[in-house]
């Protein structure tokens, strides 16, 4: 999983049927250097390439979220799965939590 900020939404009309009704968000991951600026610069936005994620929680632009990849992402957005059933939705990234609070140890940003 990674921590990122929602920077936009993606919409599409032509898509695989299993994707109907799912909101797609553009999320930019935080790097270590970005996290060092959190708290000192309120407008510090992560500046890495965005990842498109499915979202069932209703996250909005500007919010910080946790994104899961792969099988965990498909499990997260499949509402009900019976035992042994495999999720069939063709996604590989999904928002699994909207962050309330971060605690980062002081002096972070130096990972040498």
């Amino acid at each position, binding site marked *: 999983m*990674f921590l990122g900020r929602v920077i936009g939404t993606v919409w599409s009309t032509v898509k695989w049927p299993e994707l109907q009704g799912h909101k797609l968000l553009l999320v930019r991951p935080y790097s270590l250097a970005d996290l060092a600026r959190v708290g000192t610069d309120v407008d510090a936005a992560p500046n890495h390439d965005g990842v498109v994620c499915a979202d069932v929680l209703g996250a909005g632009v500007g919010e910080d979220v946790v994104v899961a990849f792969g099988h965990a992402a498909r499990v997260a957005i499949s509402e009900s799965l019976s035992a042994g059933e495999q999720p069939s939705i063709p996604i590989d990234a999904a928002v699994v939590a909207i962050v309330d609070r971060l605690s980062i*140890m002081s002096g972070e940003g130096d*990972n040498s």
Partner: protein
Amino acid sequence: MIRGRVIGSVWATRKVAKLDGQRLVLVAVDRADRVIVAYDTLDAREGQTVLVAVGSGARNVLKAGPDNRELCCDAAIAVLVDGQES
């Protein structure tokens, strides 16, 4: 597995129902400007060097065995590192 250092924690009340109740921590990946979010079942403290299992291996940290495919987990701390020779 990915070697890194615990640098903080994440709190969230709005999350998918299948997300496990375990603590979520921020791990700074060694020799990279990258941070991952992982489950912590070993009570790693801030500053601790850890190995994070990703993918299917991460689910085995939370629940070993073949019946864990319903878990929403793709990263979990598997090892607290005491020392290393290289």
